[in-house]
């Protein structure tokens, strides 16, 4: 196991995209120490910013970060194997374009968690920022597979342009969850601030908590007792909506009936 601890508090953003399990697997500790990374606009050795230690004689693809990592971006970008464990808060673009492996954050993460990821698992014990599993600005190719599990709350526009995979949020989410979504599943156990699934084409969004209102471009479809997310049963009952009709979408919203008595007005259309 490779352990990294910051030497000081960082003032400018640091791009750590190169330090992934795939890159360290056959490298000696000295080679790892001399990795070149960007600190703001300066190209420096990894060693100048982090205390690095490695358990002797182990061929292991686990990286362990401790300390304040809020300025560090792109941890685990494009990784395809192994495990990254982070004790502390972490910056944006965690697990960008990840292809496999696991990232566990025992703290909060900033925006763009798992953007454009293809496979693997990201688990965040705290809160996350906006745009989890989203596509890069301008692109329509968001998260395609894998799983993002958030135990805290999430920000706005999670699952933007999502094309597959699962986002599971235990807490609350901001507005526009699942905007432009095209396949995939978002499960929100807490509340949503609304505007759910705007311009979605396909896919499924489940909200077990409260939601202020449903967008007018969604039509109510049914009331179901339960639903399933990757084989696991979720107890309802749920109102189901289909949309976004404005974009000829066939996406589905599952909204808890018990927590949303104000949606009773839709029942007359059933």
């Amino acid at each position: 196991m490779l352990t990294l601890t910051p030497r000081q508090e960082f003032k400018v953003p640091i791009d750590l995209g190169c330090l992934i399990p795939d890159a360290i697997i056959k490298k000696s500790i000295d080679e790892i120490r001399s990795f070149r990374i960007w600190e703001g606009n300066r190209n420096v050795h990894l060693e100048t910013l982090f205390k690095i230690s490695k358990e002797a004689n182990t061929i292991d693809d686990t990286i362990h970060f401790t300390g304040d990592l809020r300025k560090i971006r792109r941890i685990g970008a494009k990784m395809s194997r192994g495990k990254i464990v982070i004790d502390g808060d972490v910056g944006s673009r965690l697990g960008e374009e990840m292809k496999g492996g696991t990232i566990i954050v025992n703290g909060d993460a900033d925006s763009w968690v798992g953007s454009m990821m293809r496979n693997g698992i990201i688990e965040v014990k705290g809160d996350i920022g906006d745009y989890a599993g989203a596509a890069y600005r301008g692109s329509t190719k968001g998260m395609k597979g894998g799983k993002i599990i958030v135990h805290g709350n999430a920000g706005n526009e999670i699952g933007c342009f999502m094309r597959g995979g699962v986002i599971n949020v235990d807490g609350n989410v901001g507005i526009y969850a699942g905007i432009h979504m095209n396949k995939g599943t978002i499960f929100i156990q807490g509340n949503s601030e609304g505007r759910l699934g705007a311009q979605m084409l396909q896919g499924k969004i489940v909200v077990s908590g409260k939601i202020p209102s449903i967008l007018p471009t969604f039509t109510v479809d049914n009331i179901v007792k339960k639903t399933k997310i990757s084989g696991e049963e979720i107890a309802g009952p749920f109102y189901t909506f289909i949309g976004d009709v404005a974009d000829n979408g066939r996406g589905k919203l599952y909204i808890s009936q018990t927590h949303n008595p104000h949606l009773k007005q839709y029942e007359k259309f059933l």
Partner: protein
Amino acid sequence: MKLVLKNGLVYDPLNQINGEKMDIIIKDGKIVEKTDKDSKTIDISGMIVMPGGVDIHAHIAGSEVNTGRLLRPEDHFKDVEVKSNITRSGVGRSIPSTFTTGYRYTRMGYTTVMNPSMPPLEARHTHEELNDIPIIDKGAYPLLGDWWFVLEYLKNGLVEDCAFHVAWMMAATKGYAIKLVNPGGPESWGFGRNVRDIDDTVPNFDITPREIIRGLCKVNKLLNLPHTIHLHTTNLGVPGNYRTTLKTMKCVEDLAYDKKPVMHITHVMFGAFKGKDWYTMSSGAEKISKYVNRHRHVTIDTAQVVFTDTTTMTADGPFQFGLYRLTGNKWVNHDVETETTGGIVPFRYKRKNYVHATQWSIGLELSLLIKSPWKVFLTTDHPNAAPFITYPRIIAWLMSKNAREKTMKKMNRLAVRKSLLPSIEREYSFYEIAIASRAGTAKALGLKQKGHLGIGADADIAVYNVNPKQVDPSKEYKSVIKAFKHAAYTIKNGEIVSQKGKIVKSNIGKTYWINVKFKSPPREITSDLKKKFKDYWTVEFDNYPVAENYLALSTPITVEAEI
């Protein structure tokens, strides 16, 4: 700087030199005859030497290019160029930023690039961007096919007045050639319509595209402009449009003189579709190449598709709108006042798509079926069919049947079955590549100092590390791709600017524009212009022309008009 390139294998088609071992001597930015004692000598035995590449049609600057950049952050995201001591940082793949454009062309051994669509109103912007493109020489073609004054003069049969006007426009916009984009179409598009054939009428002007093309062709001859008219055909990107393209070529047949070309049709691939709809669409390349083989008055460039993600941008607003409807992608459409239109749609060419695969095939069929490479040039209509960085791959397809077959194996099967390519044995030689990518284009553009290595020519030279005596390009096409991707040396203006893909010096390139001298005293046209500007333009007349000191390195080419 004095330089001698020793023992290179020289391909200089304009001087009929085909792979001879020769020394090239450079002094003060020109190619000279005699060596000086203090010249620096570079031994390039086993490498080929060609004149610097000349690209006749690539959208590298201007408002549509810049809007394309704004539209596509995801295009820049994956392609970042880090700054060095000499070069500046940049981004971009299909629409690279200005500095990156210059560096990337230079690395491939290209030294002159023409920007083919400049709305006159955006001339200032275009030149600002051209100024920022380092190393390469450049020029821009103002869009005149829908310009109100041209339409009005030609409607009334006033060809000479039109010529005076076009000459004024060349100086005002610092342009190099007359560009027509779907003549009459963008004007009709302002009223939600389009012209579907060269004999349709343009609303409010009572003129047909045929009259516009013929009129501007006559103007071009009257003014003695170095390039011919540069035409983007009517009905672009519509199945069955090869007939329109043939009609367009035919319509200026009688205006040809001295066996010289009078018309350049650009990105012909988009205008060579047969069939009634997208299901029955097939290649019309055979018919077009047959016509071009029999006639001398027309040159073309292909716009070769490469299967990749790119951005389409033309001044043909209605065509771009159609493309948006086809793809559902994000889009931009713009009406440039009284002048033209513009549109941008990101596009991905897919191997497995029948139409895209057929388009790929059409481009190569045109290049291979037209016998003389002096008539058909290599372009991708950057970035419409592919970004210019894909040129080395296209060179490999042209030089190697094996390379084409390898690509066809992964392509849509129906497209391969209908394609003519499996039956075409022809493979370009290095000599023919030199014609299609530099000598031919320089000749068509009338750039006398470019495209050859004779005494007195500009010392714009590309050296590629591939030995034709050892490498069989048909089989070892991968080494050809490697060689053309990064020139061993690129020499611009007598100085080494790039070495093995690394920029070693960044200097400023020239901007060519046309300054017409008349025999008769020029007619007063500005009073008419001023009046119309007050009524219809958003800019003041005095702010309209681009002053010469606005260009980084202004290089006017003076031509003597016949009138």
